[in-house]
Every structure is written in C-alpha cells, then in structure tokens.
C-alpha cells in the first residue's frame, strides 16, 4: 500500500468558514494508506508548498492528496511542488473542497460530511495513481494564417518579422479585407488605404511570407506543432508570374458585372483587378461571367495582353503545407438588413449600408467620392443614419453590440458634413458607445462642431413617399415624433462572422458561440488562444472589433505563435490512451471515435493487427476507452481502476 499524505487547505475562511477542518483531518487520518495529515491556512502559498515538500521527504510519501480549491486553478502549482520534492507530478490528487463544497453549501454539518467524502474519494484514487511521463514532439517552424484582412496581414507580418515563415491564405483575389474598402478611419480621420497599402505591400514582398490569394483551406490534419494544412488555390486563368497588372485586359473586356469591392454600387469587368492597390496586382477571370467560359468565344483579353499572361486552361492547385501553428483571421461579413422589412432595405436603392457608404464617400469609389443617390445621382439634401441595425436586436436574432458602429457612424456623418456643409445629417441612435481612446471626444466633435443632429431613438419605419425617404423615428429625450424626410439613408449594419467561419472552426475543432463567433480559450486571460492547442484567433472572427482592437488582437495571436514556434520541442499530453496489444482484438471500433486521428492499426504479426495510439496526437479524451469492447484501451491518469475507486468510496 502506497504511503499517502493528505494536505487540507483552509483557504483562509473560504473553506474553514463552512467546513470543520479539524473533523476532516481527523477522518482523513483513518483512511487506508494515509500516513500523514496536515492542514494549512493557504496550501498554495510558498510556505504551504514548502510544507508539502517537507512532508514528502520526512514521511517518504508516495502519493499526495490536497484538499483545496478546484484542480482547474492549482493542479499545476501542486504538481510542481510535488515534482520539486522528487516525486512524479502525476502522483497528486486534488479534492475540490472549495468550489464544490464550502462555497455551495451553507450547513456546516452537511459541508463537513461532504468534504470528508471528497477527501476519501481522492485518497482512494490517489492510492491507484501511477507515475506518468510526458514525451516530446518536434515543432514545424511555420505558421499558416487564414484570412488576408488587416488582422491576418498584421499577424503574418509580426510572425515573419520574428523570423518564422508564414503562409498567408486569402479567399478573395487580393489581400486587404474590409479595411481595404474603408475611406477614412476614426478617431483620426486618416485614410484607410494609406495605412493598409504599405502593410499589404510589405507582406507580399517579405521573403518569409508566402501570400496565397484566391485560395482556401481545404483540410487540416495533425496537431500542435505538426499541422498539415491543405490549401486549394482557385485558378485565376491568369499567369501570376507573367501578369504585370497593366490593366489592358479589363479595359477591353466587354462584360460588366457588379463589383464585389464596391458592393454593387459600381461595376467591374469579367477579367478584373478588384481595386487599384490590390495585392497581388494580378488580374483574375471571373469564369461565371466570362464570355469565353460561358459561350466559348471572345478571348479579347488574351489578344490585348502583351505579357501573354492569360491562361484559360489554368487548373486549381492543391498544396499541402506543414505548419506548427494556425492563426484564424477570417474576419466578418456585413449583416444583411433585408430582414428589416420595416426599413425597406434591399428594396429601395437609396437605403444603403455603412460599408456601401464607405465606397460612396471614398475617392477611389464608384462616384469618385462624390456623394450621390444611387437611384438618380442627385446630391442628397438630408441624410439619415440608423444605428444598431442587426445588433442589440433579439427579435432579429442578434442580441450583441457590434462595437464599431457608433464610431463609424460618427465618422461617416462627419465626412458627409465636411464634404457637403449644406446637407443636414441625422443620426438615430439608442446609446453612443465610445469606449476607446479618443472616441468620446471624436463623437462629441461630430455632434458638436460638425453639427450632426443626434436623435435618441430607434427608427420604426423607413418608406419612400413623394420622391424622398420618410424616416419615422422618435426623439425619446423630447418624447416627440422625429420624422425626417431624407434623400439617402445609411443603415449601420452590424458585423457577423464571415461565411464559412463556423465550418472552418469545426475542421479545426474550435468551438463557436450561438452567433457563430469563434470561442477563445479564456475571455480574459487567453483571448487569442483556442482550446485546440496550436490554433489562435485574430480579429473579428472572435467577435466584433474596430481596427485598433483587431490589430492588437492580431499582435497577441502572433506573439503566442512566435512563443510556440521558438520552442524546439513540445511536451505532449501525459494522460494519453494506451492499447494493450494482448487484449486488443483489432476490431478498430476505437479509430472512428478518435477526434484526432491518433489511432492506427499496427501489424502485430501473424495476420493479426492491433490498435496503436500516437501519444503525440492523443489529447486524452478517452472516447476510445469507452468505445473499446474488450477493455484493451486505457486512459493513463483516468483508468477504470482509478475512476471506479472513486465511485466505490463516494459514501462511507
């Protein structure tokens, strides 16, 4: 019988206040195998840990049981304490006397009785613990960043600048993301392109960054330090090496299509470069609209291309990339306000979204920065902005605040007043959330010296009447109707996770919330990590953010990646599954239940094959153990014997 030491923590009055420590220690002393019991005010404190070390030596303890707070808090602490006394760190068992006992029960008698049970269970389990060793795996020194918006670019640059190669995967033909569509940015009103373009260029030029635009992630296999990411590059039908981006092709292309970049407010050709500063600056043929692909003739672009870059027969390419870490930076999509029947969005051309307004006000936009009504090109005399469209609206299934709208509305209103001093501007809002540095001052400038009329109230209806748009709102501060006849209405549409993000998350076994935003490992302490080791989050895929927050988040993700990639080896999970070749029948019913593909069939000689677990890939969930029909599979640290010992000893 192993020699067990029990250490009962008071946690000040947190445990001792409700649990009779003295009774617990007395009971513990009677449990089989227990040779030493002591209690501390704070076992996690330095003296407390020293006490454990001393007792291990003094009493030649072979197992340690700590009755304290949740193992989720201090298991690591106590393991290292145990280890420092020369005992294997996995010979420790914690009884959760605080979160699961003293904090949830008021009756001292009941709480004490339960605490005694919990310690008994821990002792029984401890007696059956075995020493475990962690092995190590090498780390592939490359990161894959998924998404080429400002978050992805920032993360890629930070990682590359630290000396690690990066593959930057972007779905659309060019880097830039939504930031590339913005005109000016709050709270400084500096031009978006002026900040972003240099970043895009540096990323493309950086020797350690491999930009794969017009590409998507197909498959992700492997595990932290050793991912295999399959990237599918869609055919541009243009040879990227030859294309100079001269533009001759799209000047001559006869087909006009709504421009995705201009959000339907402008046109592009069937062969196109999405925007002037696109990176890579390489044309792409949109096969769904190109006459040659649709009707088999035209090929004008081919004729006018002096570089001979047009490659109609180009095929898609699959590349398998080995990487040690993955950064998800898939960003956001703009909420489609069409579900607001009362706002007539999508039905009346002069009711547009915030992002569309960016294109309308941008010098590189379809109107060259002249603000005109999409319907008739007239200059608007009155413009109304409506905040919280698709956010803070449970009825429309979007309860969250989209974080950036208040500020972009203030900015857009300012830009409008700047460009058209005679145009009156109204902003319908519920609250102005200006939490960032310099934000409140910025918003106050908009409402103050820029003369933007802020009206506190949600709009009930927007409808066309006599050639204008009637915005039926309420000034809840006056308790009076606030009906504006506007020529242009801008709906501040919220951010939602970009299409396909959830699907990607499933492939990475990263969880996501009810709104589809990916879940960080800890909302405060690990905001850029996920519960899947080696996968990190940057930007709006995790939740709505403005540019400063996005860049900061991306930097944080990059720092985590750098820390990971600078390691030569990673310690693997010690509590992994193990197949007993003697008992394994080779039925392999364990293989399909393993989420990590860690189980393979190994030839055991004589036509017999048995299950084999790769300890580096196994994350220790134990699904295979429960699936095994002959009890050949065990999960180290959670063996049947250990768990049943707890079951057996739950009650006296």
């Amino acid at each position, binding site marked *: 019988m192993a020699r067990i030491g029990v250490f009962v923590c008071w946690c000040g009055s947190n445990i001792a206040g409700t649990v009779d420590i003295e009774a617990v220690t007395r009971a513990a002393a009677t449990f089989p195998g227990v040779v030493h019991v002591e209690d501390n005010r704070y076992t996690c404190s330095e003296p407390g840990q020293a006490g454990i070390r001393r007792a291990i030596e003094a009493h030649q303890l072979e197992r340690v049981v700590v009755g304290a707070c949740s193992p989720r808090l201090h298991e690591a602490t106590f393991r290292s304490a145990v280890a420092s006394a020369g005992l294997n760190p996995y010979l420790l068992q914690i009884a959760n006397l605080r979160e699961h006992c003293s904090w949830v029960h008021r009756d001292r008698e009941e709480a004490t009785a339960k605490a005694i049970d919990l310690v008994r269970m821990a002792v029984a389990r401890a007696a059956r613990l075995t020493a475990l060793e962690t092995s190590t795996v090498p780390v592939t020194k490359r990161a894959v960043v998924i998404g080429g918006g400002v978050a992805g670019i920032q993360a890629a640059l930070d990682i590359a600048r630290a000396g690690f190669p990066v593959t930057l995967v972007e779905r659309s033909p060019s880097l830039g993301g939504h930031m590339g569509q913005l005109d000016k940015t709050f709270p400084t009103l500096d031009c978006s392109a002026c900040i972003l373009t240099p970043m895009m260029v540096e990323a493309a030029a950086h020797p350690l960054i491999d930009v794969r635009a017009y590409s998507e992630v197909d498959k992700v296999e492997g595990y932290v330090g050793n991912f295999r990411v399959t990237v599918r590059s869609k055919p541009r039908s243009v040879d990227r090496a030859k294309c100079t981006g001269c533009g001759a092709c799209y000047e001559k292309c006869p087909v006009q299509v709504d421009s995705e970049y201009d959000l339907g407010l402008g046109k592009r050709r069937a062969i196109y470069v999405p925007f002037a500063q696109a990176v890579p600056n390489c044309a792409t043929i949109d096969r769904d609209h190109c006459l040659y692909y649709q009707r088999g003739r035209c090929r004008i672009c081919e004729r006018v291309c002096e570089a001979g870059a047009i490659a109609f027969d180009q095929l898609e390419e699959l590349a398998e990339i080995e990487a040690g870490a993955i950064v998800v930076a898939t960003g956001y999509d703009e909420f489609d306000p069409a579900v607001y029947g009362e706002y007539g969005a999508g039905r009346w051309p002069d009711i547009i979204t915030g992002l569309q307004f960016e294109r309308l006000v941008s010098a590189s936009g379809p109107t060259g920065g002249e603000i005109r009504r999409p319907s008739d090109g007239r200059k608007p005399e009155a413009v109304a902005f409506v905040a919280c469209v698709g956010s803070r609206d449970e009825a429309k299934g979007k309860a969250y605040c989209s974080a950036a709208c208040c500020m972009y509305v203030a900015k857009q209103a300012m830009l409008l007043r700047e460009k058209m001093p005679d145009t009156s501007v109204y902003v319908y809002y519920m609250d102005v959330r200006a939490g960032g540095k310099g934000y409140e001052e910025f918003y106050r400038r908009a409402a103050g010296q820029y003369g933007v009329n802020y009206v506190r109230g949600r709009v009930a209806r927007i409808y066309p009447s006599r050639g204008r748009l009637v915005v039926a709102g309420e000034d*809840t501060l006056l308790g009076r109707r606030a009906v504006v006849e506007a020529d242009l209405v801008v709906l501040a549409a919220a951010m939602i996770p970009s299409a396909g993000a959830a699907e990607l998350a499933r492939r990475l076994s990263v969880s996501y919330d009810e709104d589809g935003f990916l879940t960080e490992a800890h909302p405060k302490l690990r905001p850029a990590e996920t519960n899947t080791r080696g996968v990190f989050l940057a930007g709006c895929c995790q939740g709505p953010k403005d540019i400063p927050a996005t860049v900061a988040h991306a930097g944080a993700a990059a720092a985590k990646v750098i820390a990971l990639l600078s390691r030569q080896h990673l310690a693997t999970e010690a509590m992994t599954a193990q197949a007993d070749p003697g008992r394994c029948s080779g039925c392999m019913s364990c293989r399909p239940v393993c989420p990590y593909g860690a189980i393979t069939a190994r030839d055991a000689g004589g036509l017999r094959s048995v299950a084999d677990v790769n300890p580096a890939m196994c994350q220790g969930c134990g699904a295979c153990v429960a699936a095994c029909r002959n009890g050949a599979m065990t999960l180290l640290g959670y063996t049947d014997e250990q768990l049943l010992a707890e079951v057996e000893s739950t009650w006296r």
Partner: protein
Amino acid sequence: MPAHILSPAQQQGYAAAVSSRAGTDVRACYACGKCAAGCPVAPEMDLLPHQVLRLVQLGAVDEVLAAQSIWLCASCAACSTRCPNMVDLARVMDVLREDARHRGLRPGQPRVAAFHASFLDVLRRGGRLHELTMLISYKLRSGDLLGDVPMGVRMMLRGKLRLLGGSPARARQAVREIFRRLEAPERRKADAQ
C-alpha cells in the same frame, strides 16, 4: 405619484405580474422608442408607449393605470411586431386596461371606455352586435349626443344600420350565460387581487 418613491418590493411585483399575464417580459424593454415612433396614436398620448412600459417596470401602478394612453391604444400591434426585445406591448395595454377597470378607476379616456362599455352592454343582451343600440347607449354614456348623427342617418338610408337586430335565441342565451358566469361577484374579487 412620481415613480421614485415607490418601494422596490411593489415595483418588482407589478412588473412580474403584468409580464406573466401578458405573456411577455416587460423588463426586457430598453426604451429605444421604436414603439412610440411607429404608434399611430402616440401624438395624442399623455404617456408614450415606452414610457408606459417604464412605469410598469418601476411598478408605478396608480400613475400608469390613470394614463390616457392605455385607452388610446388602438391595438394595431405595430409595436409588438417591431419591438427588438419582443415585448408584446399591445397585450400589455390590454392587461393595463383590464386592471384599471377591475380597480374601478376613472378611465383616462372616458369616451373610449364608454364605447367599450356600450359595446359590452349590447353583446350582453343581444349576443351579436347591434350598431344602432350600441351608438345610442354610447351617446347616453358619453354625453356625446350630437356627434355623428348626420352620418348615422346617411348610413341608415343606405341600409347600413338596421333598426332591429336579430340574432338566434341560442346564440343570445349562450352569450348571456358567459357574461353571467364571468361577471359573478366572487370572480370579480378574485381578479381584483
């Protein structure tokens, strides 16, 4: 009178009670005013729809039940249809009117109440609506004797107002029975609490 002197207990209680009776959570309202902005009769209201909800949230019972607004509500349900927090305000207004009536308060809009009452009278007796009887009963209750008389005459000329209202005996009796059972005094008391 002002809400801030009400005791918290009383506040909590009323909001919860109204919520359960209206089958909607009045506490979800964040006073965005979308209801007021779309309400056809808001301009005539003494308390705007969201202000009515606010008083209910605070449990300012007397103040809210004395309001004209609860009688002016046209039950068009534009508010309920558009509320971002899915508060069924039209139903809340029903509950408040009922409360005002059960507590025997003087209705904030006597004529509207008179109209409702006259309508119920006619039903109680006839089982089906007989407009002429109702109009007369309304005029007597409301004292609005002259209004609409010319229109009434024109309607009668076009056969839109029958002199005699006929409805089958079975229907009449069934409805009388319903009124009798629902207006039984012991039930009244039960509701008032």
